[in-house]
């Protein structure tokens, strides 16, 4: 009985120790980058189980150049800004668009990519963007993205009659296009191109939003980190590695 209790106590202690050891034991300050792990080609998990992607590799280069350590933490996109503010992560480098609303919560670095949001549909879809955004059609979008809020504020509130389905990731929406649950899905052009390469889907056309820009996000009080990232980004964009990255991940 006593031995059982002691065993129990040891297992519990061991497991909790193993779990939290990683969190506490870094001597050198390691920054944690929150990524959406379901956002190829910017951030995803590769065959070897490692975080990979355009933003992951770019940040690794910047970290090496500017002399800090970084670790990439898969985080739910929906809760990524709360996670940043709660200090569970220190920055967000994961294909995040700059918006006024987000600027109220976080600070952004300089832009590094311009994107346009497009509608993706199956190869056999013969409709145009306007026809898709009409009555009776189900359109998918990733929850927590700028296109999701745009569609709600600018289309549905203005009387558009399509039905919006929210997914926790763009690839999940693509899977539903393929099995016919939804007609089309809205996502940014680079993610759409990634899907087009892998599955029988095609880009129908731009959704109608203004262009958006990607930048890294940090907490408002981390002015030093913001400066470091901006300097690093400038150096990265001036180096040949920038073009190499763009080619490797097919980001133009």
């Amino acid at each position, binding site marked *: 009985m006593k031995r059982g209790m002691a065993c129990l106590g040891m297992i519990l202690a061991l497991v909790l120790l193993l779990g939290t050891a990683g969190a506490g034991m870094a001597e050198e300050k390691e920054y944690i980058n929150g990524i959406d792990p379901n956002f190829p080609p910017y951030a995803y*998990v590769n065959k070897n189980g490692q975080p990979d992607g355009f933003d992951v590799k770019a940040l690794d280069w910047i970290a090496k150049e500017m002399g800090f350590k970084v670790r990439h933490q898969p985080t739910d996109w929906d809760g990524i800004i709360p996670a940043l503010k709660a200090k569970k992560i220190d920055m967000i480098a994961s294909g995040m668009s700059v918006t006024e609303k987000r600027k109220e919560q976080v600070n952004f670095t300089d832009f590094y990519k311009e994107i346009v949001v497009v509608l993706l549909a199956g190869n056999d879809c013969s409709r145009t963007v306007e026809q898709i955004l009409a009555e009776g059609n189900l359109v998918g979008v990733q929850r927590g993205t700028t296109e999701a809020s745009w569609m709600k504020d600018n289309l549905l509130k203005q009387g558009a009659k399509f039905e919006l389905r929210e997914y926790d990731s763009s690839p999940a929406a693509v899977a539903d296009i393929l099995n016919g649950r939804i007609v089309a899905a809205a996502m940014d052009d680079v993610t759409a191109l990634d899907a087009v390469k892998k599955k029988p889907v095609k880009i129908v056309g731009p959704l109608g939003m203004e262009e958006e820009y990607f930048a890294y996000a940090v907490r408002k009080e981390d002015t030093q980190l913001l400066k470091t990232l901006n300097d690093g980004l400038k150096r990265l964009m001036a180096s040949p590695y920038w073009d190499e990255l763009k080619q490797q991940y097919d980001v133009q």
Partner: protein
Amino acid sequence: MLEGLTIVAGALPYLLGGCVVTISVVLGAMALGLALGIPLAVGQVYGPRWVRAAIGVHVWFFRGVPLLVLLFLFYFGLCAFFDLNLTAFTVAIIVLGLISSAYQSQIFRGGISAIPQGQLKAARALGMSDAKAIRSIILPQALRLSVPAWSNEYSIVLKDSAVAYALGVTDIMARAHFVASRTYQHLPLYLAAGLIFLVLTYIGLKALKILENKVRIVGYSY
């Protein structure tokens, strides 16, 4: 179809790596549930009225609020409120452990109630204090009787651990989801994840069955 199988085969080491995370979460949660469940059960059977009421509230709360709600409440809500920097892994163990303690306390309460009252009376007649009687006579028997129900709880906690994916714990489910996002092979991957969970359940239940047979009280009629 073949492409799906190749993808799964390639990702298998990565998926199986998730077993370590899943098993750690399950072990931690079961241990926490056990450590709390036994005192809660004893308190509920032998304790004064206020203790029984307090335990009743604990059991009612952790059986009544959905797992996902509790996970988010602890991770985003309480951690921020009390300024605790707990990892998703730790929060998953704590929440699953607390919920399991509520269910396990009921399992052990059933086991304790199955012991004939005459045993406690005999113990008192021999001059043992209630505490000694419970620790040396009642509980050893009650726990042995509870093993079958406890292995049921194990399979439940194992399955519930997959929900920790929502907090970002990279267990089997999370890994299957990441690979599916990269490759769009949802069906083979989630089937594989389900299969891995089935195997883990089977192994655990088999082990617990061996335990059950080992600690059987010879002569008890069941």
